[in-house]
């Protein structure tokens, strides 16, 4: 089922609530190596975004609207959301 990974992938990164306030961004596009995982994306976010280094080391992450572990592999066109601790209700 798996073809060879492309050289690079582009993912859409969503930041919410305190993470959006912290970085001043609620959405950013990241270009990463083809075999990148969520952890690679987090390293990119921490390095590139203003105050990104203040994000937690291991935030909650949703990949295409589903909770995932941080070792999940990304694909071109993915939507990755960084979720602060939830506080509904």
């Amino acid at each position: 089922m798996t073809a060879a990974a492309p050289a690079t992938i582009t993912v859409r990164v969503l930041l919410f609530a305190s993470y959006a306030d912290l970085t001043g961004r609620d959405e950013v596009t990241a270009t990463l190596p083809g075999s990148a995982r969520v952890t690679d994306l987090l390293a990119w976010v921490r390095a590139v975004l203003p105050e990104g280094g203040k994000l937690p080391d291991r935030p909650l992450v949703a990949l295409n609207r589903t909770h995932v572990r941080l070792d999940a592999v990304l694909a071109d066109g993915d939507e990755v959301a960084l979720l602060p601790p939830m506080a509904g209700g």
Partner: protein
Amino acid sequence: MTYLTGDPISADQLVSQVSGPSRGGIATFVGLVRDHQDGRGVIRLEYHAYPAMAELECGAVVAEVVSRWPVSIALMHRTGSLSVGDVAIAVAAAGDHRAECFDACRWVVEQVKHRIPIWKKEFYADGSVAWVDPTQLATPLAPDPLGSVHRG
């Protein structure tokens, strides 16, 4: 099904959604914006959401509750800016017997609090603002540093 709304929530409307001649009881919970939190005056709230995922997760909660209890469920969560006294969340559970109504209603409320990607920003009487973090004490920020931004 839509579970998030930017408009005021009517608990009555949820109750009528789950009513029916075979139902013996309806348990309802309405969460309201309080005028205080941890001893501080609260003026208003903002609920921000990841709408696409929040809708999916609400749907998953409702699917799970009706598989666990023989009930009908209605659920609505408000987003945007809310004033003191506004309804933030409303859950109605209708069933044959009161125990299952109460259990199902309460379970949905708990799930929503911990599982749905919604965040709450509190605006205090002293001018400060904080995102509510249930995993620790609320972290006060400087007075409204970003103004009244609405995202997501």
